[in-house]
């Protein structure tokens, strides 16, 4: 924390005056900065004064640091349909909400969560509200999230709803109103947490002095409540993600890490003995609770969408058997429909015996005749939406029609549609979002916003996150804000008058047991770590060949060295590895070398291999430190940029050299910073296997029966063993000593034996499925391989013996995959399940 030096007060107040001089809120919508009499609100005055006290430079430094931190944390999101993730757009100014106002919001949101939970109990239970005529059946059955297989099911843990979010906005009268309900898989809580981490670090003194409510207790209670709902004492809680292509994957990764949940995809799960299990390297492990970010329709291909690859066959059966707590229950998304919203005021009276503390946008479902008539009469003052989400039926891609903006034809069409199939439509009072100040070009500017507030079930009710996820539009006149291009997000500060206790997720009131082993590694994660290790090693080997080839080509041009043989073989090796195109006779070795480094078309080029490494890494990103992730990205970017333009030879070699340095740094980072029980052994196993195979190939290519001093020299080069060799042998490179160094030397970290020893050690330390002490298959292979290499004599080695070792290494890799990644008959992680009929 840096010291914050207040500067002259006069200057500061001038600065504030300049910031707000041109601030012009809309006339017909409330604003956060100014009250309806045009007075600057006191909490904003206090905030801006403190901000101004940092001085212009101080502020810029802080916000620049905040931006860097967002990149460092890897906070990102994806706009639907875009391949690349965008960096998170966090606004500089928080949304400020005084405690008195917050109390009402929190009470209203908690009440609503309770009401919706009880409605779900009724609808999926004995449907009394429907039978009594309070809630028409058709207002339920039209929802794609009325999940029929869940009817009559008692939710394990006793609740349909555990995590709920309400989207709020201010109505024209300044009162908060619910714009929408979220219960399927509400997003944004993780972004709210990340926003807080960034902004509270950028403005620590302000954050402290304004007594901002902390977010951590909310998450702690949420975790504790899921944990209590599960059957076992120390339950395995999983966050089920749709995967890296999900728009909010970055948030899901962050939440899983923050809460200590296991991040899994559908493929990680398997139904066995009527219970859900996670495939881990230690076998199948029970999944006690699932926080799902996969929509209900995609959760179970046997009972819902048969085309889904995101869920697991049998999840619904496991729920029916009561063995897995799912938050929220499949089918909870039902309460998101606008049709239901129109009934909530009445349902609140009926179910809770009290009126809604936070009213929602006035809504009329057109499935009932009386409402239908009213809506048509007042059509020009209404916004018409689909009753159950999605597009407005009959209006192409449009999601909403404003009665006042319809042409005569459209109006007639809409009235006809409402008369025919009114069940598909709702009418709402048109809401214009109110504004909050944002920072635009060094000034404060009003921008419309929507606030998402989160509630989590506790043992005896609900807890509401003090803060939330605020989305700010970049257009002044907005009726909705989604995180598409241009929108921003703001931290939300609930200001209290009392000092706030410091709190994080660390338990303070109990003595936590010391745990050194992390939960068992899911097989899919192990698989991807293994391949990340293999790809990184292969990229390194490829670049080493390129470097070696480049250096020899350079020497040739200057001195008349005999380099022909090794140049030809190095080039051949690159082609054999798929790093350069085959059968391109007009390519000279220089072109082959460069193509093998930065060519995008060949699957074996260093660039392609690094891309594969990155893909594997992206799937296990939550397990990698930000540094590791960034370094992999850096190599990819460097090679991609270099490949895209014409480049001189020295430049190319420089890029290869620097990429090798980055790979070395990466290797070091992984070795020094990766917890040994968090999957490091699988990265290292991948690396070792790849290196051993690569070394065998080098040896066959350069130390075969036709080896010359020159080819042996190239081999020593590729193995980085020139110096050691020269210190051991005074004479030049000779076949047996070089082969010994490449294959059998237990002290050479690039020899095949050295790899075999590390592989064997890893396999010895990994969890065993058998309890009879008999060795598992991969270990049997590794022990044997190691012993044979240890007892081998370099003078006996020839290409066929080396090839035999190479093949055994490949079969060892297969056995490792079978044992730790795919679990034989109970389901293969890397083979695609497909539909029977």
């Amino acid at each position, binding site marked *: 924390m840096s010291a914050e030096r207040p500067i002259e007060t006069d200057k500061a107040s001038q600065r504030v005056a300049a910031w707000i001089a041109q601030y012009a809120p809309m006339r017909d919508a409330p604003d956060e900065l100014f009250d309806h009499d045009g007075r600057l609100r006191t909490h904003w005055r206090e905030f801006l004064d403190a901000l101004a006290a940092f001085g212009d430079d101080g502020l810029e430094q802080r916000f620049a640091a905040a931006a860097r931190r967002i990149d460092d944390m890897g906070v990102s999101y994806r706009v639907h349909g875009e391949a690349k993730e965008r960096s998170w757009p966090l606004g500089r100014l928080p949304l400020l909400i005084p405690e008195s106002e917050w109390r009402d919001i929190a009470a209203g949101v908690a009440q609503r969560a309770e009401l919706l939970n009880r409605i779900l109990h009724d*609808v999926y239970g004995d*449907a009394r509200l*429907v*039978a*009594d*005529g309070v809630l*028409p*059946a*058709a207002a*339920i*059955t*039209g929802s794609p999230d009325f999940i*029929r*297989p869940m*009817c009559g099911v008692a939710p394990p843990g006793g609740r349909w709803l555990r995590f709920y979010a309400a989207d709020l906005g201010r109505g024209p009268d300044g009162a908060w109103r619910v714009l929408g309900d979220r219960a399927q898989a509400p997003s944004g809580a993780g972004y709210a947490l990340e926003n807080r981490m960034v902004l509270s670090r950028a403005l620590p003194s302000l954050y402290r002095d304004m007594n901002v409510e902390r977010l951590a207790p909310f998450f702690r209670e949420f975790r504790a409540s899921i944990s209590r709902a599960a059957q076992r004492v120390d339950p395995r809680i999983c966050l089920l993600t749709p995967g890296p292509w999900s728009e909010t994957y970055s948030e899901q990764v962050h939440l899983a890490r923050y809460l200590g949940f296991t991040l899994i995809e559908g493929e990680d799960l398997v*139904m066995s003995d*009527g219970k859900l299990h996670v495939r881990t390297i230690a076998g199948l492990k029970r999944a006690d609770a699932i926080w799902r970010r996969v929509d209900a329709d995609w959760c179970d*291909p*046997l*009972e819902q*969408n*048969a085309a889904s690859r995101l869920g697991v*066959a*049998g999840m619904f*059966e496991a729920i029916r058997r009561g063995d897995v707590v799912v938050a929220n229950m499949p089918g909870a998304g039902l309460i998101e429909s606008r049709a239901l919203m129109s009934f909530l005021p009445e349902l609140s009276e009926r179910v809770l015996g009290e009126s809604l503390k936070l009213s929602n946008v006035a809504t009329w479902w057109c*499935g*009932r*005749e009386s409402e239908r008539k009213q809506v048509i009469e007042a059509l020009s003052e209404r916004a018409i939406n689909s009753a159950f989400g999605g597009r407005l*039926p*009959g209006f192409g891609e449009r999601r909403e029609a404003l009665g006042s903006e319809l042409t005569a034809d459209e109006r007639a069409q809409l009235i006809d549609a409402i008369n*025919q*199939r*009114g*069940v*598909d439509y709702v009418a709402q009072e048109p809401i214009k979002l109110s504004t909050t100040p944002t920072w635009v070009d060094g000034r404060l500017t009003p921008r419309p916003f929507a606030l998402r507030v989160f509630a989590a079930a506790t043992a005896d009710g609900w807890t509401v996150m003090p803060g939330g996820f605020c989305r700010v539009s970049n257009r002044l006149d907005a009726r909705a804000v989604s995180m598409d291009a241009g929108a921003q997000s703001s931290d939300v500060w609930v200001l209290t008058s009392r000092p706030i206790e410091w709190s994080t997720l660390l338990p303070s009131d109990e003595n936590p047991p010391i745990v050194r082993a992390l939960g068992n590694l899911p097989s899919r994660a192990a698989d991807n770590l293994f391949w990340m290790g293999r790809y990184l090693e292969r990229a390194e080997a490829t670049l080493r060949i390129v470097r070696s080839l480049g250096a020899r080509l350079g020497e040739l041009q200057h001195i008349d060295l005999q380099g022909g043989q090794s140049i030809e073989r190095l080039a051949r090796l690159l082609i054999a590895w798929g790093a350069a195109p085959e059968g391109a006779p007009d390519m000279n070795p220089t072109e082959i070398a460069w193509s093998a480094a930065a060519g995008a078309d060949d699957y074996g080029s260093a660039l392609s291999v690094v891309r594969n490494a990155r893909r594997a890494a992206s799937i296990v990103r939550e397990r990698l430190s930000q540094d590791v992730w960034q370094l992999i990205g850096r190599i990819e970017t460097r090679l991609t940029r270099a490949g895209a333009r014409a480049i001189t030879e020295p430049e190319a070699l420089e890029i290869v050299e620097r990429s090798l340095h980055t790979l070395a740094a990466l290797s070091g980072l992984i070795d020094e910073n990766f917890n040994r029980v968090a999957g490091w052994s699988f990265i290292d196993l991948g690396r070792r296997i790849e290196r051993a195979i690569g070394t065998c190939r080098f040896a066959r290519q350069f130390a075969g029966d036709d080896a010359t001093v020159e080819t042996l020299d190239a081999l020593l080069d590729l193995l980085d063993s020139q110096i050691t060799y020269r210190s051991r042998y005074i004479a030049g490179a000779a076949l047996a000593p070089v082969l010994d160094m490449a294959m059998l030397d237990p002290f050479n970290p690039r020899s095949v034996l050295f790899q075999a020893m590390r592989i064997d050690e890893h396999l010895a330390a990994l969890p065993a499925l058998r309890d009879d002490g008999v060795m598992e298959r991969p270990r049997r292979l590794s022990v044997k391989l190691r012993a044979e290499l240890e007892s081998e004599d370099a003078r006996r080695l020839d290409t066929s013996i080396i090839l035999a070792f190479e093949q055994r290494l490949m079969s060892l890799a297969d056995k490792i995959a079978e044992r730790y990644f795919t679990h*034989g*008959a*109970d*389901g*293969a992680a890397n*083979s*695609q*399940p*497909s*539909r*029977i*009929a």
Partner: protein
Amino acid sequence: MIYDIAHRTIFKYDAPVASARCAMRLIPRSDRGQTVLSSHIELSPSAEFINERIDFHGNRVCEARILKPHTKLQIALAARVEVERAPPPAPALTPAWEIVRNDAYASDSLAASSPAHFIYASRFAPLFDSATHYARESFSPGRPILEGALELTQRIHADFAYDPEATHIATPIAQAFERRRGVCQDFAHIMIAALRGLGLAASYVSGYLRTYAAPGQARLEGADSTHAWVSVWCGPEFGFFDLDPTNAVVVGNDHIAIAIGRDYADVSPIDGVIIGAGDQDLDVSVDVKEAAI
């Protein structure tokens, strides 16, 4: 009438399948004028039956798991079913379709028999304007619902060609509608979409047809595999009645219903996931004959 049903499905895989898990809706229903006297499902390779349950719509679902590697999977159903359906009411006595529609909108039940489940677009039966307009021709204002529905059944039979080559399971029904050809499944989905477009409740029924025509009658189309037709809700007093647009008949004692749902997705006879790669080949045979008692 008592029938003996033999329904055999064979999957052949290019590459061995390590394991499979499947849900089967093959055993006919015991309601609406039919009773299952006996039924038996046999799998080869042999399977572990893990569960039998009744789904939301009242259909019997058997779940099985095959843990043996296999390249061929055979699922065989043998069932004996008695069918004795009441004849439909005189169409002119059924209520006006608009009244039936409003009754469906106002339904106060979420039970499986509620019309509220069958008035909305569903996975295989999206609503589209041309189908709604097509239906409207048979539903002039105030027309009794069953009259309109019967006429629609006959029009689909007359206007559409039965052509197994024209469509496959993934063909959108709007396309089959434009081409005016398809198979029983397409005709059922088209009729459902057309009725729902007007706000009427219609469900999808999968089932069997007697293989050999009753004496003096023509053989019905769709008898050599599983068949599909439509059930139309005719108001609280009359409930659902089944119509077969493929053969332009009211469903009587020649039809045996297996499962009811919003569309094919709810009643798909065999759903499953296999662990394996490669293509598969499907062979289905159905034999439905009068039981020799």
